[in-house]
């Protein structure tokens, strides 16, 4: 039996960032990199959202392991490299200290909401195995929709991997935390990203992101996209759970903003402000309320709840913008 450690990812709304964070969160210098990241947001624009049925709402440049090359050693394998012996490939990877990040058809994997209900390609992170019980240790969203570890049979993962369309999918990745990855905190980069967030600027070209930017909006413009996506729930059977996940991402984004500001204050980059925690706390609680209202809508279908959420999103946007514009001049100075 072998199991690699997992650490508190701090944020976990989407597996494509909670998985890498679960691997690296205990590493030296993690906080410098972490608080320089997860600043910009992106969403599908109204046209794309209409075509998809729901907004694709996410943190900018976090959705592939390749986005974490500053802090992770990454190996990518096509299906042919492991198709003859999936379980041995995984065992060998874990034996050498590598976490296995793979797309699987969740229909075949127990302890998740899609098991034996719906074919759905999604990431899983394998961090351990037990040859005696022929089980893998994984982490992800379980059948209670909680981000938690699970133990599943070898056969579940093997079948889940075999039924992925590997011509369309990303490769299988083996991940390991980079040792001694010195990533200093960079107030200049944080300033640029915050400014782009406030200006709703497209960060793709500056960052050199491999992701496409057509059909996307950024930063403050994502509020409108999210509101549009939520209002679609009133018109047809749009996916509610995806919208709940989007509000969860928004909530984590606001928590990150406060933590980042507190980190910068603790490192003398911005001055203390006795009202900071309370003002951001109000925003964070209001986003959490929006999320709970949407959960209630999932059960009761009361359109008034959507109206309240959309109104609250407008308030959250205004309040956040005011608070960030107050902090920006100090961040620009960068503690000088």
């Amino acid at each position, binding site marked *: 039996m072998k199991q690699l450690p997992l650490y508190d990812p701090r944020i976990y709304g989407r597996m494509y960032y909670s998985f890498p964070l679960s691997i690296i969160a205990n590493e030296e210098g993690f906080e410098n990199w972490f608080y320089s990241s997860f600043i910009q947001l992106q969403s599908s624009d109204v046209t794309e959202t209409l075509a998809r049925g729901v907004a694709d709402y996410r943190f900018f440049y976090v959705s592939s392991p390749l986005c974490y090359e500053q802090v992770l050693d990454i190996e990518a394998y096509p299906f042919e490299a492991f198709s003859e012996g999936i379980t041995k490939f995984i065992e060998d990877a874990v034996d050498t200290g590598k976490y296995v990040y793979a797309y699987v058809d969740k229909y075949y994997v127990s302890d998740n909401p899609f098991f034996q209900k719906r074919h759905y390609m999604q990431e899983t992170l394998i961090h351990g195995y037990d040859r005696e019980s022929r089980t893998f240790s994984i982490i992800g969203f379980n059948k*209670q*929709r*909680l981000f938690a570890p699970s133990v599943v049979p070898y056969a579940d993962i093997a079948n889940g991997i075999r039924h992925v369309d590997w011509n369309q999918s990303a490769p299988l990745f083996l991940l390991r935390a980079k040792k001694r990855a010195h990533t200093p905190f960079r107030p200049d980069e944080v300033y640029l990203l915050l400014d782009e967030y406030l200006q709703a600027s497209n960060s793709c070209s500056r960052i050199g992101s491999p992701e496409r930017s057509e059909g996307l909006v950024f930063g403050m413009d994502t509020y409108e996209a999210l509101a549009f996506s939520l209002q679609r729930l009133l018109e047809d059977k749009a996916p509610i759970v995806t919208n709940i996940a989007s509000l969860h991402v928004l909530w984590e984004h606001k928590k990150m903003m406060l933590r980042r500001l507190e980190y910068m204050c603790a490192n003398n980059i911005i001055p203390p402000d006795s009202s900071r925690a309370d003002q951001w706390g109000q925003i964070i*609680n209001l986003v*959490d*309320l929006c*999320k*709970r*209202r949407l*959960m*209630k809508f999932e*059960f*009761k279908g009361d359109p008034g*709840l959507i109206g309240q959420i959309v109104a609250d999103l407008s308030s959250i946007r205004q309040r956040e913008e005011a608070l960030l514009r107050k902090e920006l001049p100090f961040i620009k100075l960068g503690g000088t």
Partner: protein
Amino acid sequence: MNIEQTIKETVVAATDGAVDLEKVESVGDNLGSLGLSSLVQVRLIVLLEEKFDIEVDVEMIEEMQLLNSLSSMVKYVSDELKLGVAD
């Protein structure tokens, strides 16, 4: 109707049995110690609304720390039922 007992049973139902009645009773008044997720909390509110034919504003959950204390929930439901009778 025994309000307190009904609330305990509703907590069990909201967790889909992940928390059983024995566990709910073992924490006494301190329902907060059950660590119910936000999804379970909302499901609990919806079930209580159906059981007692009352309305619970989601905003009240946080304001009143409603779901942390069994006695708070009993009081809230009792007050809402009295208001309903008065109407």
